[in-house]
């Protein structure tokens, strides 16, 4: 009973925080109240999912989420026993330390950790709306993009559990949001810009600690974006930003990536080697994995799996008709998004918009790395693909290209020419 009351307090607090964040982040947005109300609904859906997921107990449900919960409990115990934060021993990712701090302050409660994750995911949705606005989308379209993200079924699942996905998605969107602010800021203040660039570099590093190859996907996207900006505007700020990103990539590669390479379980590691037995073997192993793959087939897998007839075979939802139906509907919706996004991508390329092209490079780099390295299992593709849903939604607008095409084709001289041809 007390536990339920505690959860209720948590939920109300998170809902209040969501409302406050919405009010602060969505200034000057038309229909702000409706958007915040819908965001609250998305949050409630996540709460419902969390209660269903943990119906068999928080100590038995899940895979990665369960491990992080167990480690966070250990970290909380260390903190409570007087170990300073900087001396805490933890495994896998710093996300567990965040959870551990929460457990140490508020007590061990996996529900509460999941609620916090849900809140972070709602914040990601708000950031997505802001980015869309910054990309010159109308208020209506920007809100729609953010809300579609918030109600994406798999997003509810991946960001509801105590997994690190919610944090990864948030950091990615934050990096792109800060980049947009630096590039499009009307009143450039050197101090502000330098701080923003430093923040982007720091966030890139934090992202890499959560998922080891993020430094490359983000690096490729940001470098492409900044190079194009520099060629277009010839501003020193963009060059400085570009150098900062490149240097971060190099430093993080030789420090964080090198150190954490072996422990990263999503990459296929040669089990015949052990310890630090030459990083080259690790790379050999990855390259051999890539070479063994049918690359077009792997790209197909990453972008389209699980196919509709494979959905019932996903272990987590097998024999659960409502879940199977939801995932199938989501897959159809995802295919529609992919097709619409193709038009948005072409529009971005025609316009040579550096920011959109940077985002596109990020999506392609992330997609290629996952298609080439990840195990060819529909469930895995489904989970890892979730990272590109938010950035891809920023391209899901076919009207821009179609309107441009229509305007070009229906120009007066075109029509007159057609008329003349008919005669």
């Amino acid at each position, binding site marked *: 009973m007390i536990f339920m009351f505690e959860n209720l307090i948590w939920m109300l607090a998170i809902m209040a925080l969501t409302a406050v964040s919405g009010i602060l982040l969505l200034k000057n947005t038309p229909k702000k109240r409706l958007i915040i109300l819908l965001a609250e609904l998305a949050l409630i859906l996540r709460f419902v999912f969390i209660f269903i997921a943990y119906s068999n107990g928080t100590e*038995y449900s899940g*895979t*990665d989420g*369960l*491990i992080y919960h167990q480690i966070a409990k250990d970290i909380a115990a260390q903190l409570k026993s007087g170990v300073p934060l900087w001396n805490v021993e933890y495994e*896998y990712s710093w996300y567990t330390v965040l959870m551990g701090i929460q457990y140490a302050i508020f007590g061990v409660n996996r529900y509460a950790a999941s609620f916090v994750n849900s809140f972070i995911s709602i914040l990601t949705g708000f950031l997505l709306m802001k980015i869309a606005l910054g990309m*010159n989308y109308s208020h209506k379209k920007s809100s729609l993009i953010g809300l579609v993200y918030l109600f994406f079924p798999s997003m509810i699942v991946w960001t509801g559990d105590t997994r690190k996905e919610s944090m990864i998605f948030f950091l990615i969107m934050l990096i792109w949001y800060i980049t947009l602010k630096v590039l499009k800021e*009307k*009143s450039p203040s050197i101090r502000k810009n330098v701080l923003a660039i430093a923040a982007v570099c720091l966030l890139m590093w934090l992202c890499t600690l959560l998922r080891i190859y993020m430094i490359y996907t983000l690096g490729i996207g940001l470098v492409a974006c900044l190079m194009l900006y520099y060629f277009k505007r010839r501003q020193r700020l963009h060059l400085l930003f570009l150098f900062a990103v490149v240097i971060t990539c190099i430093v993080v590669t030789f420090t964080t990536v090198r150190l954490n390479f072996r*422990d990263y*379980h*999503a990459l*296929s*590691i*040669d*089990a*015949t080697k052990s310890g630090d037995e030459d990083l080259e073997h690790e790379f050999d192993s990855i390259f051999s994995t890539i070479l*063994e*793959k049918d*690359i*077009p*087939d792997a*790209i*197909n897998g990453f972008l*389209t799996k699980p*196919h*509709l*007839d*494979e959905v019932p*075979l996903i272990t987590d939802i097998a024999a659960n008709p409502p879940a199977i139906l939801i995932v199938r509907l989501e897959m*159809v919706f995802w*295919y*529609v998004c*992919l*097709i*619409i996004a*193709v038009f948005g*991508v*072409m529009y971005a390329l*025609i*316009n040579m918009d550096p920011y959109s092209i940077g985002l596109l490079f990020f999506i392609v780099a992330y997609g290629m790395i996952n298609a080439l390295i990840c*195990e*060819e*299992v529909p*469930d*895995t593709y489904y989970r890892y693909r979730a990272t590109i849903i938010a950035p891809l939604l920023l391209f899901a607008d*076919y009207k*821009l290209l*179609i309107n441009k*095409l*229509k305007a*070009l*084709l*229906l*120009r007066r*001289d*075109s029509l007159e*020419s057609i008329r*003349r*041809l008919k005669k």
Partner: protein
Amino acid sequence: MRNRIIDKVLVVCISFVIILTTTVGAFDKPIQGYQISQYDIKVNIFKDGSLDITEIVDFTFLGNSNNAVLLIDKQEEEEIEIKAVYTYYKNEWIEFEKLAEGEWGANVFNGTYSEIQEGNLVRLKVYGVFTKQQAKILVRYSVKNAIKRYNDIAVYDRNHVQRYWEGYISNLAIEIHLPGAIESNKVKSYLHGVLIGEKQVTDSGIVYYTIPNTVPGEYVEARVVFPQYLVGNAAKTSSEKYLQTILEEEKEYLESDKSDLLRARENAAKEEGRRAAQEKQKKNLQIFSIIVSLLGSFLGIITIYRTNKVLKTGEKQESFTVEDIAVMNPAEALLLTKGKTGARGILAGLFRLSARGFVEISVKNDELSFRISENLEPGLLKAPDAKLLDLLGSLVNEDGFYRPSIKNITDNNSDDSDRIKKLYNKWNRSIRKEHSQNNILTDEQLYYRNLGLILGVILFVAGCIIPVMASIWSGYLMIPVGFILFNYALGMEKKTAYSASRIKALGQLKELFESHEHPGDKLPQWIFDINLAIGFAIALGVENRLSLLKGLESDKNNSMSINSKYLVDESFEEALGDLLKNAEAVFTEYTET
């Protein structure tokens, strides 16, 4: 009306593509369970009735799963202990670690296994570095109390393949070693669950089972009856004699209805047929997609070639020199050279208007400002110039001057901002309209331009969708072809005689600006109108070379000196640079998308 037809056509096209995509499964590998190409089982029976079993399983397909699963038969009173699990990787056997129940860590896929007790079986899950959905696993386990010992006989009876295991096995070989050598006629072996398979007993006390293949719905139960004294150390299950019961059971099995096994075979054959058909369909679709992709790309290339030819043949030579540039709008010059107007276009246009007396420019404290002249006669202006004056009217401060700085724009309220944006876009459109009215394509050129635009979009979209759906390389070729074709068609207006002659003249003018030496005879007369010169310098992006014009003063001894209005030096260039930077920061935001 025309708009509606295009909308309907688009809706139909998009719906078709969506339907095609949602049937993406048709292109995929047919779904099936585990496939095993070789399954060797070696059983050693000990005198105490326990077993030591080694199974080597060669999975050729893991059923789209990230682990290999083996189901081990576990009967009442039996105790099963997994001794070791290995995988064959790079010519050596690597031992896997055991995961405790519920344990799940980062090293899971480095080579681990877990065992889950499920009623009458043990589910063994093996995780490792499995590529291409293939794995070779070796499992060693012991079974205690496995042999049932009676007064007359002892019985080995195990399910080596479970009935509900949804997989396909080829080349199943079971080798059962009795505790000692014994004449073959004293040992009886039985095989249940499959219609095909052979068994053989040797005098050395080894029983062999060879089953060519099994399908889902079948199972493999090996039963060996041998003298009970061979397992003398085993506890007796019963003190009764059991041989007769066994014989009756076997007779019963022999006479039983085996239609379920026949059905399993039939279903497997049907499934195999369906899979073969699906595989064939996939292959056909891939071939079709490859042909479509290559043809599409070829068509795109041909269209580019034809368009280029049409552009060249339809060209009428037009004489346009540097001297004629003065009649151009600098914003149009910018549109021709850079494909856009923007802040540069506005400022260049303002200097041109100043040259014509419609705008006054003042320089104070290294800051440039613009004001609409009082003796204005707007009726004399063409649409783009009139629209630019309207825009300037919306930008001026209370004192009547426009100083392009960020502050006065950001201080504007949103109504002002919207008004400025609208006026800016009106001006922008009028420049483009005037340009397209002057720069008319021939009918044939227009036909190829429109074809290129449509085909370019279709090829790009198809290039993104087809190779992903059909898993083919060649499809990706349509992306660059489509993109290049679209861009080529889009830029056709730049390649007409009208554009080409102007672009060439503007290029020559740029060279003149950039040159340190200004031979007087090569300079156009209009360049001595400093405002016009500045306007075109901004349009061509060479405003930082204006100070080079200072030397002209000594070259020309006429009444119009280049420095007559402003001191065109480095500080003027800097002021111009700041002006541009500020204006660009504002008007980039206003650009229509």
